[in-house]
């Protein structure tokens, strides 16, 4: 690439990327600017009936959000999901990918499909099944726990157990996608390096730590950025499993936004939540990128 290319080439480039750019402009940039504008208004059902009832309120939506304990509760819950969920899902999917990539495993395509299946199954259907699995009295999970002498846990009814229950469900549901990304990266790691290390007497964990992980570091970064974004945007799982309860312990920031916007119909306030969420994800991603750059992953 010489950068300056011929004007004809540049025109062709613009022409070819124009459809995608137009779609991004129409379905992302314009709505994003619109919702930023909305977040400075008090759009509510009165404004829905008659736009003359719309007022420009400056930063009032943001001030009220910061003063609202439920907003902070939702923020804390979302940060917990990010802090616990991201390492959990990254580790789970990496482990599954290593398993499928290992040479001694028979029937590899079958395993790959089986582990990827949860990701492509309908959320609501799996949530119904998991509600049975997690049932306090006749759920399979509590039955298995009872075999090792653990008393029944009220997974979806107790404010302390609901968050882990949702995390387990989300982990099971989404790890397949990251697993496929990891699998693709693992297949690019040269076998010679691994074999050389083995001849040098390195054990399984040492080879993972010093050969495999450095080789797939950019992928680990990619997967963790995707997972952080997904954890911040957790909505459907708590909506279907617990409706934000018990005692608002599974109200995530997106769930809070949904309630502000579509339950109470305060679209102005809902848009303000959306914008704060955008800033949060942006900040976390920038930190991750900086860390990765420092450690030389990219």
């Amino acid at each position, binding site marked *: 690439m010489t950068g300056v290319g011929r004007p004809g080439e540049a025109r062709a480039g613009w022409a070819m990327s124009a459809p995608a750019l137009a779609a991004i402009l129409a379905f992302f940039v314009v709505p994003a600017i619109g919702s930023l504008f909305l977040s400075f208004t008090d759009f509510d*059902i*009165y404004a829905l009936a008659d736009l*003359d009832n719309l007022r420009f309120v400056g930063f009032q939506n943001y001030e009220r959000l910061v003063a609202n304990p439920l907003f902070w509760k939702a923020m804390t819950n979302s940060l917990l999901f990010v802090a616990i969920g991201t390492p959990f899902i990254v580790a789970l999917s990496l482990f599954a990918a290593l398993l499928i990539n290992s040479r001694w495993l028979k029937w590899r395509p079958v395993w790959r499909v089986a582990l990827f299946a949860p990701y492509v199954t309908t959320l609501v259907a799996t949530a119904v099944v998991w509600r049975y699995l997690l049932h306090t009295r006749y759920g399979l999970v509590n039955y298995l726990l009872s075999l090792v002498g653990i008393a029944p846990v009220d997974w979806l009814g107790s404010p302390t157990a609901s968050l882990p229950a949702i995390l387990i469900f989300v982990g099971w549901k989404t790890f397949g996608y990251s697993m496929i990304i990891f699998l693709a990266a693992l297949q690019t790691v040269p076998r010679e390096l691994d074999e050389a290390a083995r001849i040098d007497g390195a054990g399984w964990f040492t080879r993972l730590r010093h050969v495999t992980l450095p080789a797939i570091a950019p992928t680990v970064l990619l997967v963790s950025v995707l997972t952080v974004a997904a954890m911040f945007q957790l909505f459907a799982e708590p909506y279907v499993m617990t409706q934000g309860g018990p005692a608002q312990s599974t109200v995530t920031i997106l769930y809070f936004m949904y309630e502000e916007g579509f339950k109470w119909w305060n679209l102005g306030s809902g848009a303000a939540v959306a914008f704060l969420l955008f800033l949060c994800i942006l900040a976390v991603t920038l930190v991750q990128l900086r860390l990765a750059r420092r450690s030389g992953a990219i």
Partner: protein
Amino acid sequence: MTGALAALPLLPMLGGCGARRADALTIWAMGNEGTILPVLLDRLALPASLPRVEVQPLPWSAAHEKLLTGFAGGSLPAIGQVGNSWIAEMAAIGAIVPLPAPAAALLDDQFAAVVETNRIAGTAWAVPWYVDTRLQFYRKDMFARAGYAAPPLAWAEWKQALHRVKALAGPGNYAVLLPLNEFEQLLTIALSAGARLLRDKDARGAFSDPEFKAALAFYKSLFDEKLAPLATAAQISNIWNEFAKGYFSIFTSGPWTIGDMKSRLAPDMQGKWGTAPNPGPGGIGSAAPGGSSLVVFANHADSTAAWDIVARLLAPNAQLELHRLTGNLPARRSVWRAAGLASDPIVAPFATQLDRATALPKVPEWERIVTEMQVVAERMVRGEFGVDAAAREIDRRADRLLEKRRWMLDRGRAL
């Protein structure tokens, strides 16, 4: 692009999404009523001169959002079943039309408080279809052992009876269940105390009134005196079990619970429970009137036919059929007599209570205000606020939620 071309044959199907058959009238109905309405309409055998009626059932959990998005998108049907507490909102945004003069007769033999709920700024906007309210379900055997035929109706004696019931129930058990995450119980106590809840054309909270403070203090005392457990509904995993075991001997609920009581309680418990009106400071208390009404949505061309269908659904034989199919309590008093409900010892207290019901404030913000009220009340019970501070805090939150309404009133734009 080839993908888009491949989709071309699907275009005629897209056209099918837009236009419903112009000659059919659509009704949105929720939950159980949505399921039985087609059966009911079949049995009513509407005359051929009326347009064909289509029923679209909605789940209750999504009904409110559907109504608002339907309004925003201009796709509301002709007739809708609307929860009584949503009518103020529907009227405020101009989604529904007021009752025409001929339909006013449908309100004649109905419960006054329910009709009042649907009357906003002096105009009736909806016809109550079936009614409900909340009152006490109690353990007859426990109260009999404590020396009472039924829970007393004045607060002081009622509380004394609860103390005796708690003593009988033994350690670890309580007398009454007031789930901390549900506002209905405190609201019932407040209405019984005669609190007006909002003031200044419903544009400010009136939670610092002496009546409401008395209700708050009474509510708090039930927890302070260990008559009610500090629990949310989520912590009571099986309300029927706990009721039968004597964890509590009174809980508040509506007529929908009667069927559950009959099917879920063990046979030996069946003679041991009853219903009673709510207690008040000096005798029988009040309650919020509930249920659903039928509305005709605005911008519908053939509203005469729509009101005609509403009138037919309110006819005594249709009301009786609705009661038989769902167990819902009919809105018309004449049907209560015809169905023998007035003499049923379990159902009759609901009529008594509905006669003493009080309409709630009719502002779109009400549901959110009452949710905030309960958030503060829960904190008060857990010791974060005193009664006066809690009342002030509820007022502060209500005033903030009503700020837009005050602005609208100043400009003469609110109903």
